[in-house]
């Protein structure tokens, strides 16, 4: 860990200004990922702008009938929020499938979007990693890549995005609100995270110095028919090998609207609108679900140790859609073990 200075901001504009005035500055919220990265010498900020005093912790209705999640509301407070539980139970389930209670109590919503990959090579400075050190190579390609991407990877990087919460946000088509040196703007969730391409060092499309201030959920929450299914190596405190956020709007047995997003398979939350289109207007049957699943994994490529993820993802999509159609999942106050 390198020496750094610290300041604490009480207003968004001050935070942005403070950040811009320090070369190599970083924002810090809950610090649940950044501190680890600093201890491992993966992140070496020279200045930290503390955000926890910013007035961004509220969860409030939007004029459009949706819900605005403050960037500094904790993951725990968001999951337990009555409106989230009632209207967006998919988000409740996804958040509770991630990390541990202790981490969720510290981790913020904005920070959740910005957590870095858990690729072993990214964390170990003794190995090459194009994301950590552009141009140094990729240790995971040809190495141990059981947890790596099967969709949208590049020759430079096969890392995956680790969040559970973001998979639900992708399925719900949230909007990210940001503030930066050039003012405020909004980014559709789908456009927030990036595929690695030739610039794997960039996880997302934030401009330098931009700060996430909130997340807007649209009015439609798919509160009746949804499923968050997470497959992993142990029942808690493990990142997804494959996770699926499935949400359906049903008219009788016919699918009116559908959302499908996957975690653990790509450099970003992987929402597949083509697969969603294959579901819309179709009967909610195993055959329909299988067609959508086949579409998602159509372009999947294994790296060796992670080849199994392709079949696992296909099966998980079918199961998640089936659970969503049955309406068998509910928001939980206590995280009941819903692991398959």
């Amino acid at each position: 860990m390198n020496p750094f200075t610290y300041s604490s901001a009480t207003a968004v504009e001050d935070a942005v200004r403070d950040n811009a005035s320090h070369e190599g500055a970083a924002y810090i919220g809950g610090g649940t990922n950044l501190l680890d990265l600093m201890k491992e010498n993966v992140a070496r900020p020279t200045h930290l702008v503390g955000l926890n005093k910013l007035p961004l912790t509220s969860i409030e209705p939007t004029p459009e009938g949706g819900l605005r999640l403050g960037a500094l509301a904790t993951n725990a407070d968001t999951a337990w929020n009555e409106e989230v539980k009632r209207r967006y139970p998919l988000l409740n389930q996804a958040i509770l499938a991630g990390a541990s209670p202790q981490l969720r109590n510290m981790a913020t919503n904005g920070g959740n979007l910005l957590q870095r990959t858990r690729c072993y090579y990214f964390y170990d400075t003794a190995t090459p990693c194009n994301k950590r050190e552009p141009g140094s190579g990729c240790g995971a390609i040809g190495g141990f890549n059981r947890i790596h991407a099967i969709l949208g990877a590049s020759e430079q990087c096969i890392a995956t995005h680790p969040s559970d919460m973001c998979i639900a946000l992708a399925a719900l088509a949230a909007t990210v609100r940001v503030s930066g040196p050039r003012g405020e703007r909004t980014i559709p969730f789908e456009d927030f995270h990036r595929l690695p391409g030739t610039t794997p060092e960039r996880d997302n499309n934030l401009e330098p110095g931009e700060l996430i201030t909130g997340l807007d959920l649209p009015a439609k929450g798919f509160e009746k028919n949804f499923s968050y299914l997470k497959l992993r190596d142990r029942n808690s405190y493990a990142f997804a090998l494959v996770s699926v956020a499935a949400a359906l709007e049903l008219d009788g047995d016919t699918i009116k609207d559908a959302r499908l997003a996957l975690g653990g398979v790509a450099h970003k939350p992987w929402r597949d609108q083509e697969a969603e289109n294959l579901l819309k207007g179709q009967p909610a049957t195993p055959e329909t679900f299988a067609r959508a699943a086949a579409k998602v994994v159509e372009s999947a490529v294994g790296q060796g140790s992670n080849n199994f993820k392709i079949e696992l993802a296909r099966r998980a999509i079918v199961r998640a859609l089936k659970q969503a159609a049955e309406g068998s999942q509910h928001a939980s106050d206590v995280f009941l073990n819903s692991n398959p």
Partner: protein
Amino acid sequence: MSTTNYIGKPTSRVDGPAKVTGAATYAAEFQVPNLAYGWVVSSAIAKGRITKVHSEEVLAIPGVLEVFSHENVPSLAWFDRNYKDDVAPGGSPFRPLHEDKIQFNQQPIALVVAETLELARYASSVLRIDYEEEKHETDIEAKRDEGFEPGNGKSGWMPPPPPRGNPDKAWEEAEHRLEHEYVHGAQHHNPMEMFGATVEWRGDKKLTVYDKTQGVVNVQNYLTKIFGLSKDDCRVINHYMGGGFGSGLRPQYSVFLAVLASLELKRSVRVTLTRQQMFSFGHRPHTLQYVKLGTNPDGTLAALQHHALHETSQFEEYTENVVNWSGMLYQCENVKLGYQLAKLDVFTPQDMRAPGAATGSFALEVAMDEMAAAAGIDPIDFRIRNYAEEDQNAGKPFSSKRLRDCYHQGAAKFGWDQRNPQPRSMRKGNRLVGYGMAGGVWDATQKKAAAKATLTADGQLLVSSATADIGTGTYTIMTQIAAETLGLPLEAVTFKLGDTDMPEAPVQGGSWTAASVGSAVKSVCEAIGEKLLKLAQKMEGSPLKGASPDEVEFVNGQIRLRQDPDNAVVIRDVLQASGETKLETDSSATPNMLKQGTHSMHSHNAVFVEVEVDEEFGTVHVTRVLNAVAAGRILNPKTARSQVLGSIVWGISMALMEETIMDHQFGRYMNHNYSEYHIPVQADIHDIEVLFVEEEDDVVNPLGVKGVGEIGLLGVAAAITNAVYHATGKRVRDLPIYLDKLL
């Protein structure tokens, strides 16, 4: 009625309050004045040479005191024997910072010492090291054909016995035959507490060393031999340990480096390792096993062959007993056991809970399950048909063996009769249900140990021994033994341990502490008792006059005649009447070789497991475990149960999660943290039951105890593997059973 019978009674940990309130102080927590902090720099390559350590850049940072590396380490002991600790395997022990040679990845290659921990950490992160890399080999698959039989292994290792009968012919002619390979990868102990040492400089080369270790005496011997210190000037202390599991049997490089820096800088120094560095030393070795079984038409074993090959370092020949158990657990006239090592560019493996047996019992007990299925015999019935009434390896009777009762009592309590023998025949919704069982055997060992006891006039008893409590409950059971032997209330007894100023005891390992130190504590308390009796007999009008030690008992704070309990003397009155302020004595207990030499002494167990496996995803849930254990006398059912519970959780871990993954491109373990080296969390653990089968044994030691630190782990991974087969019809022979192996 006696109120001072404690042995066999569930007793809460006497050290529990200190641990949960934070009063217990661990090695890296001791506050000493003028402390400097060392941070270890680890090699980024697996093999090669260090061509330059750019110390000068780091030394320029204000507050950095020194950079130790092979370039400036002073001349230390010359011979290998000085570096050999009490439990070192054969070969040349690793000498930290000794030379420019790099022999394994994450090898400690420098120590940066600074005024603060943060500064030492930062300085170490910018210390540039130049390497000359050489080609490494870390993959045992590449050394399959280069296995060799080890020479002299470490103490406790036995080469496999020579073949008996005609194992090849018997296998060829058997009714049912199988041959399979069974594999598990490297596993690291990962105790919660990281290794660390606080070395207090007391002036003039006098040190007090607070170290995380399972044996303070071993560390003292090691340090004094290397650094030329007298034992009086090198006191080693460890009162509490946040888990050991074998990782603390050998002195760790953290204590070597802290002592080196302290002696050179002439001030107190602390060195603690990081979680990543906890993957830089000993581990359960990656092991390839080959088992061949053949049975006769009546379901008895016709032939049994078991061969193991595991990794060791380039510099030491680590050995553990992997295959020997297979010649002992079942009756078979045609047996061939083989054991080989392969040298890789890794650090020397290290005993890890039930070393060798956890590995061997996995292969043997899965093979037995496979054979039972092939022969169409119930797995328990198959084991009972092949029950060993004597130890055929040694040609000796067992001192006691209630394994049959483990099978029967365990099966009854588990509900084994509910098992449909057909694989894939039981299910709950999306989940396939399976029952599996397996068992194991472990040594019951007693080693020489000593203890000291002091009884003061206020009736307080202090007993001490330089043993360790690695979380097993040593403090508690020794307090129970001492209190019962002298008939004192538990509250009047204090047991202390973990200090080289105390009478010598062996490292805590091998499940031998209860037997070894327990016998010493009993012996020293009996010696105090004899002194007390003599003083009591001198009291005016003593009702005990003329009584021999056999004729009295120590109960309820009194010495009384066995035949006439009303004739009693209060222990506190004895000392006060005598005018003595205290009675003090020490004593050691040694194994009775005459008695023990004619027997084979072992603990046994049988494990029953229920799993549920998602049919489409292959996710395995261990929903029920019952572990029936026959381990002699159980001193404290509460702490003993905790030992077995911990073993079961570890067995679940071994079966489903644990593996240190080596990237052979870099010769480096990649999942070296708690996030990616998976062990179970609460959500993975469901119903667990521990059943102690009553077992009397007057051969093993005066207490009749066999130890419970390791036996509980045996058979757990195999039972889970067998249950997964029963649930799914898929036989997995390489651990851990990741879901992808069942897709």
